[in-house]
């Protein structure tokens, strides 16, 4: 006997897809990079990632408590922010500073705007920018991966015993630009760049792990290819122009694409749906902007790496891009 009749607006069925599942997919997509970080930088890397995640989740919980809003931890977005922030930190970054950055990322990067979906800038990048501004020295100290090729150049004088820090490929590339020579050192590292045995941030070093994770997201249709392709293409074009001008001073375009935060950005940061445009045309503009800005900073600017500022800058213009790239309805604009 029917005693309880439900009524609601159509449609009455819905796809078994949820925000939580999308975020869970991103976490799974990040898993190879986390594993690579654990492999190259050992247990400390995992501790760093865990502390970022825990502090991000705790901050979100606290913010909800203060704002008297329902608990939003179930959507896993704080976990994603925590992991991405941790992966963009140097391997020997102190935990207390990472926790500060993580709290800042969630509190100021996301919750003050109203939580998930309302933030203008990518929270993880906000956190990283804050850390770069506050702890500049710590943010540019690169530990050598635990399994590094000893033939590779070290930034400290190679005493042959234990060089603790090493220049990242991009720092070398910056050096090469200044001295107009030595770009081939980075070019020779292509294989290391790909598998990850170079200096750099936790999650940036292994292009292979990031590609696997990115591929997973693409296959699961959690992200579409507009933004990754646009970023890679525009970065490739600009890097090629520079390379053609002076191959001694500028590293090869492929090295550019594999080094630094490029792939992490391409698959996990620039594709953050909240802060990227909605329409395919907008996504292409956004992606081209990120790629161009990154290369501009890397080649012309003062910093060796420009992904973070490129993403933040393009995030800021996303509302404008959305306004610019409005769809016209299929039947054409109404004649009224």
């Amino acid at each position, binding site marked *: 006997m029917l005693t309880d009749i439900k009524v609601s607006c159509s449609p009455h069925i*819905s796809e078994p897809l949820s925000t939580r599942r999308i975020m869970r997919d991103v976490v799974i997509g990040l898993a190879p990079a986390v594993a690579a970080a654990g492999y190259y930088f050992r247990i400390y890397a995992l501790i760093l990632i865990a502390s970022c995640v825990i502090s991000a989740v705790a901050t979100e919980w606290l913010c909800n408590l203060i704002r008297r809003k329902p608990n939003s931890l179930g959507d896993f977005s704080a976990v994603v922010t925590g992991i991405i922030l941790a992966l963009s930190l140097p391997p020997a970054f102190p935990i207390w500073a990472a926790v500060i950055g993580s709290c800042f990322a969630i509190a100021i990067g996301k919750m003050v705007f109203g939580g998930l979906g309302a933030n203008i800038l990518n929270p993880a990048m906000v956190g990283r920018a804050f850390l770069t501004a506050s702890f500049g020295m710590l943010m540019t100290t690169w530990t050598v991966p635990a399994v590094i090729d000893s033939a590779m150049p070290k930034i400290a004088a190679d005493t042959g015993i234990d060089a603790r820090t090493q220049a990242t490929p991009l720092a070398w590339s910056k050096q090469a630009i200044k001295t107009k020579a030595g770009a081939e050192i980075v070019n020779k590292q292509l294989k290391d760049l790909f598998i990850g045995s170079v200096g750099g941030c936790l999650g940036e070093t292994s292009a292979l792990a990031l590609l696997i994770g990115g591929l997973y997201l693409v296959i699961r249709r959690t992200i579409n290819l507009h933004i990754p392709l646009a970023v890679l293409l525009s970065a490739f074009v600009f890097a090629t122009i520079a390379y053609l001008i002076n191959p001694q001073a500028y590293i090869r375009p492929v090295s550019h694409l594999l080094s630094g935060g490029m792939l992490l950005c391409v698959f996990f940061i620039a594709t953050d749906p909240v802060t990227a445009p909605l329409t395919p045309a907008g996504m292409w503009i956004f992606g081209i902007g990120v790629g161009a800005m990154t290369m501009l900073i890397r080649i012309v600017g003062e910093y060796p790496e420009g992904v973070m500022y490129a993403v933040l800058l393009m995030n800021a213009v996303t509302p404008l891009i959305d306004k610019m790239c409005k769809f016209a309805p299929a039947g054409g604009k109404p004649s009224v």
Partner: protein
Amino acid sequence: MKIGAIGGYSFPGGTHPPQNKELTCEHKIHPGPAVKEVAVMLSQHIGAQCRPLVRAGNMVQAGQKIGDSDAFVSAPVHSPITGKVKEIALRSHAVLGRSPAIVIEAYPYSPTKRSDFSFDDFDEDKYSAEQICDAVRQAGIVGMGGAGFPTRVKIEPDPRLPKETMIINGCECEPYITCDYRIMLEWTDRIIAGIKLAKKAAGCSRVFIGIEDNKPRAIEAINTALKSTSNVDDIKVVPVKTKYPQGDERQLIKAILKKNVPTGGIPPMIGLLVLNVATTAAIAEAVVFGSPLTYRVVTVSGQAVARPGNYYVAIGTSVSELIEFCGGVTQKSAKVVLGGPMMGIAIADLTTPITKTTGAVTVLTRHQIGRAKFARRQTACIRCGRCLDVCPERLNPTKIAHAVKNNALDVAESYYISACIECGCCSYVCPAKIELTGYIKTGKIFLAGQKKKVPQ
């Protein structure tokens, strides 16, 4: 003109909800319940409401006209049974709310209408275009796919908007519903007769029958019937890709002719006429046998119904009686939907009568409702853009919905809210479980209210 394109006959956007048609697709059209009482709504169509032609206490014959209107856009209503008018009272209507209906009590042993018309010696030359239009008008035929636009108005030639192509809609893209499928299989000759008549009345030069490719037997049945019929060289069956909402006329036109109906426009503006297969069958019955539209095939389906199937039901039968006839509801908690789960309307009052446009009664279980958005917690929009990907009209559902939510109707209009066909794809795919379609519908109602208030 190029017909179709590489990649099959389809349209951009859309989605693939689970079809669940296997529940009823093998159930032949059976006679529905022998009703003791019917409530024939006076407004079952788009246009002017009918005025009753009978009073309480009057005797009526099955097929007798009991309501009509002088307005051009309207359709008369008829009594499906022989009996006595009990009263003219308000009954629930899925769209109009409480609305007047003529309640008729059946005489004992009042026979139900037979559905087996023979079209063996059908010849369309016996009927002139005027005769056809008149018969369609007198029989009170309206679009039976759901919109309920008076068919006479559609097929009557209009010198300002000549119709050269007719598209017959046999897509039935809504999950669960199989009434059109059964009609195509069982009443094939009737459909072809109806198509010929409508084509003649409207003066169309060619006809495409669009059928989704998940119904190969229907495609085959119609193709076989066309082969053994004369004068059908300009009638073609087009298998279209199975995708929701392929059965929306704008999407069907896109799929078959690669043409877009202008936003806010209607198919005649680009020389087209779209009719549902059930409507063409009704046209044939009306013109050849003078039989008014008093019965229709209704799919009663859903996992919560004991005996799902397709039934030939008297218009005016209450939903509860129909569900009881199908063995009742097996669960305590369920959702009763008039139509399919994507666009159908959930009703709370089970005495709601079946109308000319009710193609299905779908009873969804608690489990299925549980998967729908309102049972889960909504999250904020994460701007994933899935609603933009699936929107067949290339709109921006999330922007429109949030504009309506924030009472910014001007913004909603700047994102073309009125172009929404309310197919429900955006709500269906939304991972944040936001009622996008609901917000858009609400916004449209607000806008209509605003426009009424402005003095002309």
